[in-house]
C-alpha cells in the first residue's frame, strides 16, 4: 500500500517540478550594476591567518586615532569600552586621560536634568548622535551604522571595508544614467548598489600620526580597518593561541586512543 501511494505522490511532485521547469524563463533579468561592481581588494594584516598572528599595536593605535578624528563624527562604536583599549598598549593613566576627552550622557545629580560628564574607563565609546532620528537628520536620511562589528558584519570582511574606504572615484563614462549617483550620493564600485551616502571620509594628511607615518588615504584606510578588526573581535589572537594548545593536547589524546584501539584489536580479525 505504501509503495503505490508513494509512487502517486512522487509523480505529483515530479509533474509539478517538470511544469515549473518549462514555465521558468532560462535567462536572468540583466543586472547592469553587476558589470560595474568590483570585488574587494585583499588587505594583509598582522592579525590574519593562523600562523602566529598578532596585533600590530602601533597600527591599531594609528587606526584608533583615525576613528576618533574622522569616523567618530558620524559612527558610533557602542560595543567597545575605553578600558578595552588596554589591548592596544595603552597604560591605565593614558586610558583615563583618553576617556576624559569624551563627554558621555549623564544626569545632573542636583536637578535630575539630562547632562553630560567626562568619560571613565568603564564607559563605552559614546554615539555622536542622541538617537536615530538625529543621526538620519544630519546625514541626508542615511543612518551611519555602528562600527563595532563592521568587519564581521559585511561579506568580504576587512577586505571590503578597506576597499570601500579607498574605492571612491568618479563614475565611469559608460555608466547608465539610472546608476549615476544622485544628490548626496557618491560613486563607489565596491558598494553593493554602487552609490553610497557616505562622502569620501579620508583626504591625504587628514590626521597627523604621532609616530611619523605618512598619512596617505591608503595608509589611514589600512590602519582604521586594522583597528576595526580588533573592535569586532578583541579576543581574536587569544582564540588562535588557545586553539593551538587545545589542538595539540587533543592530538596527543587521539594518538593514544588510536594506539589503545590497535592494541585491543590486535588479536581480532575484523
Amino acid at each position, binding site marked *: 500500500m*505504501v*509503495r503505490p501511494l*508513494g*509512487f502517486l*505522490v*512522487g*509523480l*505529483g*511532485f*515530479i*509533474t*509539478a*517540478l*517538470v*511544469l*515549473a*521547469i518549462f*514555465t*521558468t*524563463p*532560462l*535567462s*536572468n533579468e540583466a543586472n547592469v550594476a553587476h558589470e560595474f561592481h568590483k570585488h574587494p581588494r585583499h588587505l594583509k594584516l598582522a592579525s590574519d591567518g*593562523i600562523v602566529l598572528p598578532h596585533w600590530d599595536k602601533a597600527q591599531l593605535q594609528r587606526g584608533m586615532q583615525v576613528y576618533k578624528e574622522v569616523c567618530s563624527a558620524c559612527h558610533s562604536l557602542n*560595543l567597545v569600552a575605553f578600558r*578595552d583599549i588596554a589591548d592596544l598598549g595603552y597604560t591605565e593613566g593614558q586610558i583615563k586621560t583618553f576617556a576624559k576627552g569624551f563627554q558621555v550622557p549623564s544626569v545632573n545629580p542636583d536637578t535630575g536634568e539630562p547632562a553630560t560628564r567626562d568619560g571613565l574607563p568603564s564607559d563605552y565609546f559614546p554615539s555622536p548622535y542622541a538617537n536615530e532620528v538625529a543621526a538620519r537628520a544630519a546625514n541626508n536620511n542615511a543612518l551611519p*551604522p555602528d562600527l*563595532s*562589528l563592521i568587519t*564581521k*558584519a*559585511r*561579506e568580504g*570582511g576587512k577586505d571590503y571595508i578597506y576597499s570601500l574606504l579607498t574605492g571612491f572615484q568618479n563614475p565611469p563614462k559608460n555608466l547608465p544614467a539610472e546608476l549615476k549617483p544622485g544628490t548626496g550620493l557618491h560613486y563607489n564600485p565596491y558598494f*553593493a548598489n554602487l552609490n553610497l551616502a557616505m562622502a569620501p571620509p579620508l583626504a591625504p594628511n587628514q590626521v597627523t600620526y604621532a609616530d611619523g607615518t605618512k598619512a596617505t588615504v591608503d595608509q589611514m584606510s589600512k590602519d582604521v580597518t586594522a583597528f576595526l578588526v580588533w573592535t*569586532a*573581535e*578583541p*579576543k581574536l589572537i*587569544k*582564540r*588562535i593561541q*588557545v*586553539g*593551538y594548545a*587545545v*589542538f595539540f593536547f*587533543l*592530538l596527543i*589524546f*587521539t594518538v593514544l*586512543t*588510536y594506539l*589503545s*584501539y590497535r592494541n*585491543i*584489536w590486535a588479536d*581480532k*580479525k*575484523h
Partner: protein
Amino acid sequence: MSFPWAKPYEPTHPLMKWMDEKLPIPRLVYNATGPGYPVPRNLNYFWNFGVLAGAALMIQIITGIVLAMHYAANASVAFNSVEHIMRDVNAGWFIRYAHMNGASMFFIVVYLHIFRGLYYGSYKAPREMVWLLGVVIFLLMMATAFMGYVLPWGQMSFWGAQVITGFFSAIPIVGEPVREWLLGGFVPDNATLNRFFSLHYLLPFVILGVIILHIWALHIPGSSNPTGIEVKDEQDTVPFHPYYTAKDGFGVGVFLLIFVALTFFSPNTLGHADNYIPANSLSTPAHIVPEWYFLPFYAILKAFTFNFLWIDAKLWGVIAMFASIALLFFLPWLDSSPIKSSNYRPLYRIFFWILVADVLLLGFCGMQPAEQPYVILSQLGAIYYFAHFLVILPIVSRIERPLPMPNSITEAVLAKHATDTASASATA
C-alpha cells in the same frame, strides 16, 4: 534482549552487589555499553557516528547551559548580551563559538549517520523502529537548531524566523492565524524570542529522551553491520567493551580535532555576516539564507515555481519540503529488498551515490540567489530526490539481482583477510 552468549553481569565487590539489589544501574550500563553487549566484529568507521552524535549533543547541552547563564532573551538586549558573552565573560567567546559550531558538527555527524543507514540498509527489519525514532530525532534537531539561530537576534535570526514561520501562512484559511499563534504577534518580536528561548532549552532534553528510546530499540536486535547479515553465533561478535569503547574513543578524538580546528581557527566560516547586524524589521537582507544544514530542503522549497492543480506554488514548495523529510518515515516499506548492505546491491548502490551527489547539489543551489542556472538545477535536483525514494527505490528493490553473499559475518571477515594477505604477498 541480548544474545545467549552475552557475558552476564556478576558483581564481586560487596558494594556493587548491594547496589545491584537496590538500583541495578551498573547492570544496565554493563549490559548496554559494557562487556555484556555483544556487537558484530566487522563494524567499520561509519558505525562511529552514533556515538559522535551523542557526544555532539552533550557538548551542545553543556555549552548551552553555560550560555543561558549570561544570555538575555529580550529583543532589546539579546544581540548585545551575545556580544557581552563574546567580550566580557571569561572564555565566553569560546563557549559561544563552541555552541555555534557545535550545531554544525552535530548536523555533519548526523547526516553521515543517516547516509550510513541508507547505504547499509540499517532502516530495514528488524530495525525499523530504530530508524523511525532516528527520523524523529532529526526533526527535533531541525526545530531546535532553527530556534537557536533566532536567539542572537541578528538580521538572519529575525528574517530566518520571518521566512520559516511564513511557511505556515501558505496553508489556506488556517495558515495565517497559525503563524500568528506561533510567533505570538504579527512579526517576530519579543514574544517570539522568549518562546523560542524556552523551547530551545527544552527540546535538547526531549532529544535526549528520544535518543534513549533509539538506543533501547537498537539493543533489541543489536547493531547491524557492513555485510547486512545478522549475527549467527558467538564468533560473529565481540563484547562492546573494550573493543568498541576503544574504537569510539579514537573516533571521538578525531571528531574533537575537527571541531576544535573549526571553533578556534575559523569559527565564522559556516555562519553568515548578516547575523552580526542587529535585527531590524525595516531592512530586509539582500539574500535570506538559512544555516548550511537546511540548504538542501530550502532548495526543494524554492524549486516549486508553478501553480499546479489549484495549489499555489508556495504551498507546493512547503508541502514538498515537509514531504522530503516525512518520506523517510516510510523508507523501510518503500524498499522491499531483503538485502540490507549496498555492498551486495549493485544497482541500488549506483542510485545511492547519485542521491548523495543530488543532496550536495541541492545544498549548493539552496545557497544561491533565485537566478538561472540555479533554479533549474534545484528543480532537477528536487525531481531526482523524490524520484529516488518514491519511484526508483521501489522498482530497483523489485528487479535487482543481488551479488552472492557470504554465509556469516565471520566468513566475510576471514575471506577479506585472505584476499588482503594474498594481495599483500603478491605486491611483496
